[in-house]
């Protein structure tokens, strides 16, 4: 076991745990964002650099700070380590830079992108990005590619997190999918546009943090925040059968795997559950899926809302509009 502090909060974790996972054990605001790391896929992480943190003290034995910021998703903890995330201006500055880099060649076509509303990049940019761009040049573009008949690859939106290539590598036994080219000309590819056709290929869609890989059976059907996510299951011989149904009225518009609060799938689902069972009758519906209130999806208020709290927040905002300082912190955020 190793004891360390992250932004002053103490936590004790098993040896070999990464700083990011130690932070997740604490939870809350001090958890660094992650765009390429994916805990259930081996070897992911280290690439996007958005999870950079400062190690102010390497360990109890060797208290020297690490010379550079480190990727928290791939750096193991040490006993006596002191980590700074939100408490380090250097980290926040570097992260702002990384967000800018990630957005540099991103088309910002959220208004026509199916991922809008459940996009990790959108959320990240909202929290850490600037509202204007300093980039005046052309952005890179690619032709859209079909990866089989159910998945669309829109490389223009890709941030090269490499997650999908690990899905192709690790969830299936045939590797038919990787990265071609170098630098900002790299692209996710199946080489000669070979179809990726195995039972678990659809999980690529779920691990993609942006709208580069989308479900062709759902494309342009609806904005996600007009759908109601419902937890549901069926008995399936290939996978756990535990899914989320994205419903509009009684129609199932999309089926996806369940993601945790960090946007990660823990139980992958098969293509049959994902693509071939689009009627509610096929499923045992468990109830509405809890969606974080910060998410635009929760705008839909499909979960019961605390009207008392909402009223308080409106009053607080009104006071603020009148030029008075905010009387107290947002009660909704504290709940």
């Amino acid at each position: 076991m190793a004891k360390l502090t992250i932004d002053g909060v103490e936590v004790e974790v098993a040896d070999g745990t990464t700083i990011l996972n130690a932070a997740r054990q604490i939870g809350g605001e001090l958890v660094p964002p992650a765009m390429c790391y994916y805990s259930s896929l081996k070897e992911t992480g280290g690439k996007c650099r958005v999870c950079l943190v400062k190690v102010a003290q390497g360990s109890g034995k060797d208290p020297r700070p690490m010379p550079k910021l480190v990727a928290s998703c791939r750096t193991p903890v040490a006993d006596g380590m002191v980590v700074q995330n939100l408490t380090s201006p250097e980290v926040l500055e570097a992260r702002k830079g990384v967000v800018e880099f990630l957005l540099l060649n991103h088309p910002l076509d959220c208004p026509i992108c199916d991922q809008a509303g459940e996009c990790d990049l959108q959320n990240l940019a909202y929290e850490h990005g600037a509202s204007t761009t300093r980039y005046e040049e052309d952005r890179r573009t690619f032709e859209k590619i079909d990866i089989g008949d159910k998945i669309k690859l829109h490389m223009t939106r890709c941030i090269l997190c490499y997650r999908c290539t690990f899905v192709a590598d690790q969830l299936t036994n045939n590797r038919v999918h990787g990265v071609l080219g170098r630098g900002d000309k790299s692209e996710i590819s199946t080489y000669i546009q070979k179809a990726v056709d195995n039972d678990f290929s659809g999980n690529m869609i779920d691990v993609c943090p942006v709208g580069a890989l989308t479900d062709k059976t759902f494309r342009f059907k609806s904005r996600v925040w007009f759908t109601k996510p419902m937890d549901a299951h069926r008995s399936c011989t290939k996978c756990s059968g535990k899914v989320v149904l994205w419903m509009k009225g009684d129609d199932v518009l999309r089926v996806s795997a369940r993601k945790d609060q960090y946007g990660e799938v823990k139980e992958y689902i098969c293509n049959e559950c994902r693509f071939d069972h689009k009627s509610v009758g096929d499923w045992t519906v468990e109830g509405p899926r809890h969606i974080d209130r910060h998410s635009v999806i929760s705008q839909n208020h499909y979960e019961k809302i605390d009207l008392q709290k909402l009223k308080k927040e409106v009053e607080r905002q009104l006071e603020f509009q009148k030029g008075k300082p905010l009387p107290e912190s947002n009660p909704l955020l504290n709940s």
Partner: protein
Amino acid sequence: MGKKLLLEHINEPGIETFDVYRKKGGYASVEKALKTMTPDAVTEEVKRSGLRGRGGAGFPSGMKWSFIDKKSDKPRYLVCNADESEPGTFKDRYLMERLPHLLIEGMITSSFALGAKTSYIYIRGEYMYIVRILERAIDEAYANGFLGKNILGTDYSLDLYVHPGAGAYICGEETALLESLEGKRGNPRLKPPFPAIAGLYASPTVVNNVETIAAVVPIINMSGDEYAKIGVGKSTGTKLISASGHINKPGVYEIELGLPVEEFIFSEEYCGGVWKDRRLKAVVAGGSSVPILPTELILTTAKGEPRLMTYESLSDGGFATGTMLGSGGFIVMDETTDIVKNLYTFARFYHHESCGQCSPCREGTGWMEKILHRLHHGHGKKEDIDVLVDVAKKIEGNTICPLGDAAAWPVASAVRHFRKEFEAAAVEELLV
């Protein structure tokens, strides 16, 4: 005349053949090491010599060798980094072209020290003709009992292979090199683990530059202590310098570390002064990745001391007023040089060579190139200069491998020392 430890016999006719090389005293270090020394004693000599990596980072070689995991039950490997792709650097080419047996001799002696039974020379694809030179020399070494089973009748055996890359600067980064050698895409690995623990095929591995490995030969022949007497302080021995640019005598020079920079540039023995009777404007002293310095800072340090060709003297003053010895790619620029254009050329290179794994380098190198393209072509704005510097700052230190730093340092230093030129290149206001 400075001592020549590596290039002494380079102009000897036929030195690329085994027979002539052997007549000139070649392979003596192998005989000495294998017959009279233990592997650890060889490593000890290298430690005592103070030899530092000649590939760019200058890490003490003996120390690097002693990190190799000897407890592991996996085979150990020595890999020679002959990917030489840093703009301005061409010393390894010269050495391998003319003295292939010197590298092979160094590989055998070093492999013995590390306990490697299989070793590789990873060479850049553009050096295909050198692959043939090396392979011919390796065949000769096998035929003469210096490679293969039971070398010189001892119980040490070694196989040596040459592996050409496909032409990528990034494959010179040691972990990208190992990926490429394994047959994979040449993306740098995340460290730790370092190659000494898990390198080639996840086995303990040492990666060394061509010149580093060649230097082991004179070290074993003359002893580490004798080698350490050459040079100044922690910069011991001789170093190959690739001199290029606006000088009268470009070429590869073997210098004793500690030579004053001024003497290197202006003496007849080395560069022979700036060409066409022009004045010196700037020098990139260690390959395109290191900070550029203007005349007054390359000839003397900020404290006014003469700048020497050593790791310490060149980096005196940090990046504010100093630079690095790097790989020894010494690029001299005369007064007519357009610094903006030069930087644009470098930026284009790094953009082209970024592997694209990590976002600051993938996106930032392209952005810097585009801004410099604009400035160079006369439609950049004043504000672009600050954006440029800020982009470089956001890349530096935040990437997986040092290519990001290598792309950022030239930018930061060029603007630091030649800001006026960037301002002159920028237009006041864009007319629309």
